[in-house]
């Protein structure tokens, strides 16, 4: 079943809108997919994630999530949509440095005003699943890169979102930790989570079920002749 559909998306930046980030870009993602979005720096990969998450608006085109048009959803409605449906994982983990790992993971639940007992139970359970239960009282700077990224994954999935957006999730990790993180992703994907992973790394791309290439904000055909849309 189709989870999201981007059609002829155009996004321009700059005061006179002279920088084109996306140009007539298309993307279909089905539920349960694990998709790698690949391209060079500045090709528009992160802009796609920002548009899907609603952090950025689009100027032209259509964005449907579960057949609901999202292009005109703004403000707190978009915030609630993001909180309930999307989890974010970033290259440099984006953890709050002056909060403990527990507080970082609990953040989306607290913003959703979940009861204290439920927050405690869910955070501890998830931390145990990801092998960071002993790090909960620590601060991000006290963790290794792999542990920090697992904490970031925990925060991204604590609200049980349908879609997880990962922007270069292994970019700051060594090979061993990269593999471990991708294994976690595969496990979560097997449990039903949909992934869109922005990456430069062909190894990461290879571990995904499908790869979409983007160049200069447009869909780009690979050498194999695969249409990436």
């Amino acid at each position, binding site marked *: 079943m189709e989870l999201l559909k981007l059609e002829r998306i155009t996004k321009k930046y700059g005061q006179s809108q002279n920088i084109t980030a996306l140009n007539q870009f298309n993307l279909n993602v089905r539920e349960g997919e694990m998709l790698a979005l690949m391209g060079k720096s500045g090709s528009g990969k*992160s*802009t796609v994630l*920002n548009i899907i*998450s609603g*952090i*950025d608006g689009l100027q032209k085109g259509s964005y449907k999530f579960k057949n609901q048009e999202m292009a005109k959803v703004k*403000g*707190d409605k978009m*915030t*609630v949509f*993001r*909180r*309930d449906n999307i989890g*974010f994982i*970033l*290259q*440099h983990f*984006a*953890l*709050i*440095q*002056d*909060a403990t790992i527990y*507080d970082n993971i609990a*953040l*989306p639940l*607290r*913003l*959703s*005003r979940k009861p204290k007992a439920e927050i405690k139970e869910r955070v501890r359970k998830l931390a145990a699943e990801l092998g960071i239960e002993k790090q909960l009282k620590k601060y*991000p*700077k006290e963790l290794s890169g792999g542990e920090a990224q697992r904490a970031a994954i925990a*925060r991204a999935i604590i*609200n049980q979102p349908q879609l997880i957006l990962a*922007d270069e999730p292994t970019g*700051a990790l060594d090979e061993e930790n990269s593999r471990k993180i991708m294994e976690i992703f595969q496990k979560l994907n097997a449990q039903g989570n949909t992934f869109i992973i922005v990456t430069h790394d062909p190894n990461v791309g290879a571990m995904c079920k499908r790869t979409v290439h983007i160049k200069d904000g447009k869909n780009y055909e690979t050498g194999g002749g695969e249409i990436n849309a």
Partner: protein
Amino acid sequence: MLKILWLEMKNYLKGNAAVFILSVLAFTFACITINLTMFNYLQADKFRRENEESYGNKSFYKVSLPPSSAVFMRVFGNDNRENIIKAFEQLKNDPLFEYRYRQPNSIEFFDFDNPNFGVADFPRYRDEFLHGYEQGRTEFAKQDDYLSLKGLYADRLLINEPNVNIASGRWFTEEEFYVHDPNDIQFPVILGAGYSDLYEIGDIIEYMQMGSVNPITLHVIGFLEQDGWFYDNNNERLLLNRYMVVPSPEITYNFILPDGSYCEFARFVYNSSIMMNARIVADEQSAAAAMQRVYQIWGENKLYEFELFDETDGAQRWLVMAREQTLSNLIISVFTLLVCVLMFSIQASYKLNKYKKKYGIYMMSGITAKQLLALMLQDVVLMFALSFGLMFALTEIYRTIWFSNPATFHRFDITPISMETVVVLLITQLLLLCFIGITGHRKIHKTDMSAALREHE
């Protein structure tokens, strides 16, 4: 959300304690200057209204003497009493101006040290005290062994005051202003509305003292309307609810008694108050002539030391001074507020730059606009609350002076924090919060959160 706010506040204060304390002090100073401005503004407005109401289009003069005890002794000494009486008679009867010589003064009713004025004669003295004073000072009076009530020695013109009206009974007759025999003194009394449930018309109040003469009997002849008042010679409203109003008496007999001594009652009647507490009121067009005439009367009666000063002119100057003070305080307030606004702007920009990644993480995690606003403004709200509290505390300390015994302190009615000040401060704080909120909101929208989130710590 409260947990997030608490964590944020804790971390902010940990990292920015010095800036926060400085901000609290700066805004406290701004609050104090705003309070001073408001106080002066309200005072100036009060002066203006009182001046308009009290003076209207008339000129008021007050009497002064050089501050010398020798001069005072000569002018009000027994040897000069006759001149004082003559001058008083002339001033009172002159058609060029009104001579107002009403004197608020305490009236004593008994004295434990004096066997003639025992408490046994005042079985209701506790009631009388409760009626005579707003706060009811019965126990205090018992310790002091005398009964003293608020009295007003009224001139004939008092009843012409627009806010002095008789509720029941009557005003004094001309004859009642005169005493013919020092051994038989009886006065009519008109009581303030506060006494209306204690006395009735026709009641007799015995043993009033006047100076050190024998007991005087008061006959209740009327009651004043509730909340009657007039402007006294300090141009302050004198509320008459708790006053006993008796005629300011004059004597028709010789103040030198047959045995050659001075009559004590006459000494009391023609004391310095009838001159020094008097106000001379003239129409604007006859003010100069009235002034000239008053000096002429004093000259004729060898009262050369007396001087007139223009109360209306003084009040106007006082008003101008109050307005100037308001303006200078306003300038300081505006300047201080501008400094605060500048500080807040720098602080807001600094915070957004420093914490933009953190705000990005909150946005990524699904923080709503209201929650984000609360997060951005919470330290400012705390700073406002602390400044507000500190201003109240400092103002209270400033208004209170402790004497040598710390248990006894005195509160002065200077620069109190009025409701108007509180409203102005709350509006100022609200405007500043809006300013910071809007600035922060715009800045966040201009920030490339995507780039901020990708930043490496």
